[in-house]
């Protein structure tokens, strides 16, 4: 403690800015770790909490995926002796038409019985109206909103709430406001309750329910009730606890967790090298103090421990700040992650529900402190090895940061061999082990690679500026380990940019290819601008009506919804196979020899997307189990095609088979092909004129509008790359500032001599600038090189565990070209302050030894 107070504290105070930079390294790593996991957990737990709140006292839920089932099923459920209360539910997301409110989840319930399950704790309203379900039921425009939603939008009982429904924009009358808490907290209050039969009409459900929530009789074990229900309903129905819905999301989020984990490991590695760099500076600057301590009898262990304790304290402070920053970042990130939730429920979880898990914070704190101590280990060991005699000779040059070591290169070679062996085995665990080993091997090679690169750069630098260039290159060559911290951090950061950018760019290109070849209808008729929104359904007869419009050549009704397949919510796309074959120019990956379209049309198989096949490790001939209201069907895979409809994969089923098994003939989207030579815009106008008045919900989108919408969604993926570029620039600035600071301290005498023999201040400045640019160039070269390797791994991860898409390996040259000026400018910028510091060094102090 005394050493900390006497030695460490004055140094920290004197170099407050640099100390801050050290902490920034930890802050950055911990913040990314905390942000990613907190945002992930917030969305997941938010979803679970929402499911619980919406489920109320329901112990079991009966459903058939998203397809819904006929109303008659309710009586079958209610007739099961183990069931006490069973109530039907419809869930629909509706746009509120209120500024900034987005979608609201409409819970359609039967108020005559639903109060047995859910507590509609009403705060205000005409008691006679609100407490009287008769008025609520008699008036189909009745709606009950949450207090949070009412407050946000200045709604009171009697107010009108405009909602986008199947019958067009419709004004609902607020007949009650639910008190805060419980149910009303779901989706941050963006929830409303209406009569289920009114909801069936306005959301085009026909006479079908989405789900039945139920409570079992007192004393009856839930498992027994589940078994009885399953027996009464048959295998086509899922009878699960409400929490099972959370498990569905968990499987969806699991794939994102992989990306997040990779990114946070990278962030921690980057942070580690920044810390390493900062402690190297500290050791260099405090060499004389260490010498005094050693001369006074301080053992090596004490010196080492002093630096380790300092690093632990820095780690602790950095971790605390990192946790705080991470939570702020999580709030910003949760919006994009919760869009997945929107895909399941139609309404986004609100960011104000983000809270950190204490266990995660504890882990982050431990990771921050341990990372910091690990990073400080080498500088601390160097400090412990300081020779007191040399250290006390003022100005005596001592190379503390030794050159690259042969042992490290050997270790890197061994790790590379091990990584290749892991990749050769190939299973998931070994693959990820191979990835980690490759990263470690690359890191071990950084000092050697830095040295080789600096040697290679020397002639170029000398050619640009003979004196300054040579000095700058020599500085890097003499002490490659001093540079390697910054270079390693920069390399990792840029490798992530290249990896993520490459995957993003290839995904984008593949989607464009898919749009060009497969998504070829001239018009799309949908209930929503968002084609993946499955809230609104049209009757099949609408397709027949559209087909009679002059200029329409063909209409494809499409019904899509999610079904659980091997526990993963998978998109089932129902389409008329003959038309699909005729119109769809899908890239075929594999096919049953008897013809995939013919077999699927005959109801003897399904076609699946290649990402489904890859994610589920399935191939032609493997059987897919589908639970339907009419019983379970098991169909072989007869074709695999390239399709980007869903990142979890898609299954294509013939419409006739669907109508038989699900008893549903609705469609989400009608794909319309115009007759040859007919302008699709004219057809669009005719459809709107003829059918629009009777179908106010109907939107007719052109192919271009749909393409633009898909590409806009895809573009969001690329945004991630740009945020990584920002992190790379930050890392470059931090790392280079630190490296140059060490370099200037190490070369104080050399720079002093240069000035004493007539060197200009301009030359000193330029030497430092060139050194900075050289570090930037080396970091760029290694970053692009390792980025090429990282891209391979990220493409593999995408194919294996993320979207299942097999993307071609193409190095993202445009991103690499963009990085050159960005990183070099950042390097130059970071050299400005150290260069001025070098110029202002006292000549007397620098030459004191001489």
């Amino acid at each position, binding site marked *: 403690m005394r050493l900390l107070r006497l030695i460490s504290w004055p140094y920290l105070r004197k170099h407050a800015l640099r100390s801050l930079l050290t902490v920034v390294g930890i802050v950055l790593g911990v913040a990314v770790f905390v942000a990613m996991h907190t945002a992930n957990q917030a969305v997941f737990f938010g979803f679970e909490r929402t499911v619980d709140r919406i489920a109320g006292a329901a112990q079991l839920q009966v459903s058939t995926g998203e397809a819904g089932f006929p109303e008659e099923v309710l009586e079958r459920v209610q007739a099961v002796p183990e069931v006490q209360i069973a109530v039907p539910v419809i869930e629909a997301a509706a746009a509120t038409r209120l500024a900034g409110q987005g979608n609201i989840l409409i819970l359609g319930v039967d108020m005559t019985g639903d109060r047995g399950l859910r507590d509609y704790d009403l705060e205000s309203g005409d008691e006679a109206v609100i407490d009287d*379900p*008769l008025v609520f039921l008699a008036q189909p425009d009745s709606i009950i909103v949450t207090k949070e939603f009412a407050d946000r939008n200045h709604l009171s009982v009697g107010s009108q709430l405009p909602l986008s429904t199947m019958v067009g924009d419709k004004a609902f009358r607020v007949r009650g406001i639910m008190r805060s808490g419980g149910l009303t907290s779901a989706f941050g209050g963006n929830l409303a309750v209406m009569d289920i039969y009114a909801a069936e009409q306005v959301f085009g459900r026909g006479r079908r329910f989405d789900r039945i929530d139920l409570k079992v009789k007192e004393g009856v074990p839930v498992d027994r009730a589940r078994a009885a229900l399953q027996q009464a309903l048959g295998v086509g129905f899922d009878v699960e606890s409400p929490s099972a819905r959370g498990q569905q999301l968990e499987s969806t989020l699991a794939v994102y967790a992989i990306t997040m984990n990779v990114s946070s490991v990278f962030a921690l590695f980057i942070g580690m090298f920044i810390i390493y760099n900062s402690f190297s500076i500290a050791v260099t600057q405090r060499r004389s103090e260490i010498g005094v301590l050693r001369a006074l009898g301080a053992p090596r262990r004490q010196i080492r421990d002093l630096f380790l304790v300092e690093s632990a304290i820095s780690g602790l402070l950095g971790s605390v700040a990192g946790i705080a920053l991470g939570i702020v970042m999580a709030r910003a990130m949760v919006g994009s992650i919760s869009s997945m939730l929107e895909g399941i429920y139609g309404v986004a979880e609100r960011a104000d529900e983000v809270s950190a898990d204490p266990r995660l914070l504890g882990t982050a704190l431990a990771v921050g402190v341990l990372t910091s101590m690990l990073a400080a280990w080498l500088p601390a060991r160097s400090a412990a090895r300081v020779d007191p005699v040399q250290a006390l000779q003022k100005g005596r040059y001592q190379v503390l940061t030794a050159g690259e070591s042969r042992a490290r290169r050997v270790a890197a070679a061994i790790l590379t061999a091990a990584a290749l062996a892991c990749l050769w085995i190939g299973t998931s665990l070994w693959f990820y082990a191979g990835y980690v080993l490759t990263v470690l091997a690359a890191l071990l090679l950084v000092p050697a690679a830095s040295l080789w690169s600096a040697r290679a750069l020397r002639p170029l630098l000398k050619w640009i500026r003979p004196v300054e260039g040579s000095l700058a290159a020599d500085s890097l060559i003499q002490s490659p380990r001093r540079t390697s911290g910054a270079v390693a951090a920069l390399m990792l950061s840029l490798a992530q940019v290249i990896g993520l950018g490459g995957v993003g760019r290839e995904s984008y290109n593949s989607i464009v290819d898919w749009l060009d070849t497969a998504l070829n209808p001239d018009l799309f008729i949908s209930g929503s601008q968002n084609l993946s929104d499955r809230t609104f359904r049209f009757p099949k007869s609408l397709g027949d009506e559209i087909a009679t419009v002059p200029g329409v050549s063909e209409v494809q009704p499409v019904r899509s919804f999610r079904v659980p397949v091997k526990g993963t919510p998978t998109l089932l796309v129902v389409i008329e196979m003959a038309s699909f074959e005729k119109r769809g120019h899908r890239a075929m990956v594999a096919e049953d020899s008897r013809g995939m379209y013919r077999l699927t049309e005959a109801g003897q198989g399904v076609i699946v997307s290649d990402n489904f096949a890859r994610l589920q490790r399935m191939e032609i001939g493997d059987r897919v189990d589908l639970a339907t209201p009419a019983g379970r069907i098991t169909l072989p895979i007869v074709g695999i095609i390239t399709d980007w409809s869903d990142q979890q994969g898609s299954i294509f089923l013939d419409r006739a088979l669907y109508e038989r098994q699900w008893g549903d003939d609705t469609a989400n989207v009608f794909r319309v092909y115009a007759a040859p030579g007919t302008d699709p815009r004219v057809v669009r106008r005719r459809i709107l004129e003829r059918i629009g008045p009777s179908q106010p919900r109907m939107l007719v989108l052109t192919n271009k509008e749909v393409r633009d919408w898909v590409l806009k969604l895809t573009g969001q993926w690329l945004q991630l790359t740009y945020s990584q570029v920002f992190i790379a620039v930050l890392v470059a600035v931090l790392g280079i500032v630190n490296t140059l600071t060490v370099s200037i301290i190490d070369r104080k005498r050399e720079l002093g001599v240069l000035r004493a023999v007539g060197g200009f201040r301009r030359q000193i400045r330029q030497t430092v600038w060139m050194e900075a640019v050289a570090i930037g160039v080396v970091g760029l070269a290694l970053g692009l090189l390792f980025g090429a390797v990282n891209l391979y791994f990220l493409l593999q991860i995408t194919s294996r565990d993320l979207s299942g898409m097999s993307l071609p390996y193409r190095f993202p040259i445009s991103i690499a070209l963009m990085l050159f000026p960005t990183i070099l400018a950042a390097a130059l910028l970071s050299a400005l302050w150290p260069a001025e510091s070098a110029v202002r060094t006292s000549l007397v102090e620098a030459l004191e030894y001489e």
Partner: protein
Amino acid sequence: MNDPQTRLKCVLLVVFAMVTLLAADDPRQIVGESERRTNASSERYEGLLRVIDAKGKIADKRWMFMRLGSHGNSKALLRFTEPAEVKGVTLLIVNHPDRASDQWMWTPALQRERRIALQDRSTRFFGTDFSFEDLEERDVDQFEYRLLGEQAIDGAVCWRIESTPAAKKISQYTRSEVWIRKDTYAFAQVENFVKGDLVRRLKHSDFVQLQGIWTARNLEMTDLRRNSRTILTLEKVQYNIPLREEDFTIQALRNPL
């Protein structure tokens, strides 16, 4: 008295008197007799439903009630006529002697009917203090009875009888106590219990004899848990009027008169 015929008449008179006396103390017979005396092939009335909540706030509704058949084997239609926002909403109740009734509700604004599930019968009848179950007719055979004694209600001496649902009867109530007037065999009061707690009390008053049937024109249901009450006032009561069987069907709900 020595005349055998006279002796026989005396014996028969004594036996009849004894049977009547015994029957009068048999709670099941009392309830049965009450049921017999209110028997009518059909019934129609206009009802004013006044809900007075715990804060004293009053809400009124009006309905038209029609019943075909009687006591556990009947069909009833209850059509709301006021206020405007509930006008046309109709409840069809089909009572069965051997099981719980079937109930459907018609909502004109939606043009569709919905079934009121058996599990929902314990819920309040559209904001009143009656539950859906309270609207069902009580058939004497669906309960078991025990005479608890006699007690005066509004000055009229009544039999106090406990009724508990028979094994096959599904009810929200664990047991009920009914008070039947000794003079008219009309129900004077019913108290309903759930696990020992008194939850609802139905009081009959304003008795009048219409077409030979003692009819309470005022029914007041008190919900003791909510501390609110609902008063149903019967107007224009008619019995044994001609009603058509086909008007008491789901199809008829869809095409109201």
